[in-house]
């Protein structure tokens, strides 16, 4: 079961869970992912030790997709 989570004021919130062979859960996850992008979040997936990648479409084969906010110099 793959998970889409958002880092927020609660620590993190699970927005969707899906399995690639279940179209209903996939549709719900894709909708949730796009809604977060519209809110200004970026989708991130880990791609190995110490490496991550920003994604603009929900990667259905990823185990965990994390939504993060923009950063800036302080």
């Amino acid at each position, binding site marked *: 079961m793959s998970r889409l989570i958002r880092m927020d004021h609660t620590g993190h919130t699970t927005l969707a869970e899906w399995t690639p062979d279940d179209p209903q859960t996939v549709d719900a996850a894709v909708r949730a992912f796009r809604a977060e992008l519209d809110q200004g979040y970026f989708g991130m997936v880990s791609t190995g030790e110490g490496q991550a990648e920003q994604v603009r479409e929900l990667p259905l084969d990823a185990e965990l997709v994390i939504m993060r906010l923009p*950063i*800036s110099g302080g």
Partner: protein
Amino acid sequence: MAVETPGEGLPERQAVHWRPIVDEHRLNRTAALWTATTTAHVVPFIGAGALLFAVQPLALPVTLASFAHAWVIPELYAHRGANVVKPKRSKAPAGAERASIGLLGDLVGHEARDLHARTGLVLERGELGVWLVGPAGALLVRPGGRRVHCYCVRVNDPDLPSGDRIAHLLLALRSDERGFATVANLAFSGARWRVRRRVDASVRPAVGNPGSRDGPAVEGPCRSGGGIERGATA
């Protein structure tokens, strides 16, 4: 110099599009500029103090004041750098803090998890050096471990729990290290011993003791491409 394709890397870079991308060459240049600036501050005070004492030994108090200036000014700069990892009380509820630290723990290995529990900083090996990431800033310990670049950088929501704030920075760093260093504001670049003296006592073990085998391996290997390799001396 690094060549970057427009649109690649951290999207936040577009907010600071005028800044050249930070790479090895630029880091070395920045380090040289900071060293030159520090020298330009220190040498005149030492020279003036020594000259004054040579001309009039009774002016010893003024000479000592001049030497004090030569010492204090670099210390103030180092203090500014150390402040980027100054621990601050989180405004988030305890439950949110625990949840955020749990997620952060899932993102990092045992070494970084242990260091975070002790110091509040997460150790991340990059291609530019070893990063120590806190909720509102990061230290980049260059290969060789002698020089530190202190960056002020944060997620634009100060009410997030500390673990989430670090995780935001960590994910951005992992996706584009040079972009991360470009977006961040440089607060200080100088000797690690100078920064180590000025950081909070709880954070000090993370910055490490040069030459010591205790504490984190900030003098240890850096990541190169997909692997880990021993960093060259700066």
